[in-house]
């Protein structure tokens, strides 16, 4: 009997900063995820519509469509709740509140620890689906 290899969870990373994109993609790939990267909110929406990922890491400030607007759109459209972590340079309480109010499962502030990011992604994916 041929054994099928275990499917790696697919993560979509959307950030207009190529450094952050590459860094997060590299770290998550090393941690065993299958990562797709895009540079703005509209591209992220297209990827989401074509083949919804298992997890999304979104920057809040992105060209074309901000991370918050994208998140609201995703929450309105998706049948299944896809976990989303917002990664942002905005650290005020009001910004964090806005992120969670839009439907984020977690919020991390830049500068961030790549190791902590992986722990958070794993932690969220380990939660039972609501």
């Amino acid at each position, binding site marked *: 009997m041929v054994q099928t290899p275990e499917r790696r969870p697919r993560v979509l990373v959307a950030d207009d900063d190529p*450094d*952050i994109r590459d*860094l997060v993609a590299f*770290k998550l790939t*090393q941690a065993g995820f299958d990562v797709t990267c895009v540079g703005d909110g509209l591209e992220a929406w297209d990827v989401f519509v074509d083949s919804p990922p298992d997890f999304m890491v979104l920057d809040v400030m992105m060209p074309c469509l901000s991370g918050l607007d994208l998140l609201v759109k995703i929450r309105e459209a998706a049948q299944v709740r896809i976990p989303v972590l917002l990664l942002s340079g905005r650290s005020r309480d009001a910004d964090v509140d806005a992120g969670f109010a839009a439907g984020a499962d977690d919020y991390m502030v830049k*500068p*961030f*620890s*790549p*190791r902590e990011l992986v722990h958070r992604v794993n932690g969220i994916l380990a939660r039972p689906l609501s």
Partner: protein
Amino acid sequence: MTFDLTLAGLITLAAVMTGVACVVMAVTVVGVKVQRGLSERATERRLAPLRPLVIRVASGEDTEDGGALRGLGTATGRSRRDLHDLVVQLLGKVRGEPAEQLVELLREQGALRDAVRRAHSPIVARRVRGLHLIGCCRDVDGLDVAIDALEDRSRRVRSQAVHTVGQVGDPRAARPLLHALRRDGVHLGDAAEALVGMGYGISDALLWALEEGHPRARTVAAHLCGIGGVRAAAPVLVTLLESHDDPTVASAAATALGKIGRPQDAGALAAATLHFFPFQVRHAAIEALGDLGVESAVPVLTRHLSDPRSQVAEAAATSLIAIGPRGRRAVVEHELVPAAGTALALARLKGVLV
């Protein structure tokens, strides 16, 4: 040869000159853009082999034998300078162990020498970049340059120097930093943050600033003495409160006295609530009496429940509740006074009072 300067001739000449100026400007703008594009592409080419290694280090995924760091160590000349710029960019994006490794890389590659050179440049932007790099290296060898930059003629450089001395975190910079506050261009919050970054060794500098510093330095020093609970500063703070030459300094002194928490300062704080003190000083003194929590302040605070300034009356009610049972009784007895009634309702909502 003669020129016939008629009106039509002048208009034509002006139009031709304007046209030439527009062409020159357009060529200049295009030239600058092309040059910048070429320069960016050249930088990308130089960084192409190094970038994956930097990303590996910045993500905390370098091999156990430090292969990526070793690979970055081979960069020379212009590539090395570009590499430093990339590392500095990434330091604003990651923290933790990877950030420490990036700092170590900068130090090992002699980025500090380059930074010090830039910090002495006649061009403001280069001085700012140099100081930023010194801060990223967090190397005490760059401290003297950063301290000198606190007195730079440019506001931008002075402002960056404050961040830099805070990042280096050596308390020797505390006094020059407080001294530099006499000039504008330095945000007080940034200065306070930088001083906090220097740790406990700054108390002597704080005392000096309270006694001899500029009012802006006194304000910051009073604030930090309160946060740090510097009891040795209390007598000077009382003097600053009583003299109230500068209301900002006096109110910062009052707040600090409340946080330091010496019961013997209640008298000075109570005196500062009198009507001839500026409003902000009275308000701060009333809040400080609440922080102090001494029952001897209850009569003074009770009198202020009917203060004509609603903020003062509300602060008095809040402070009375913070003092304990005797203060709360006083507020309950005056429940019909608006400030007391509001404070009681709030305290009940918070569960402080049943």
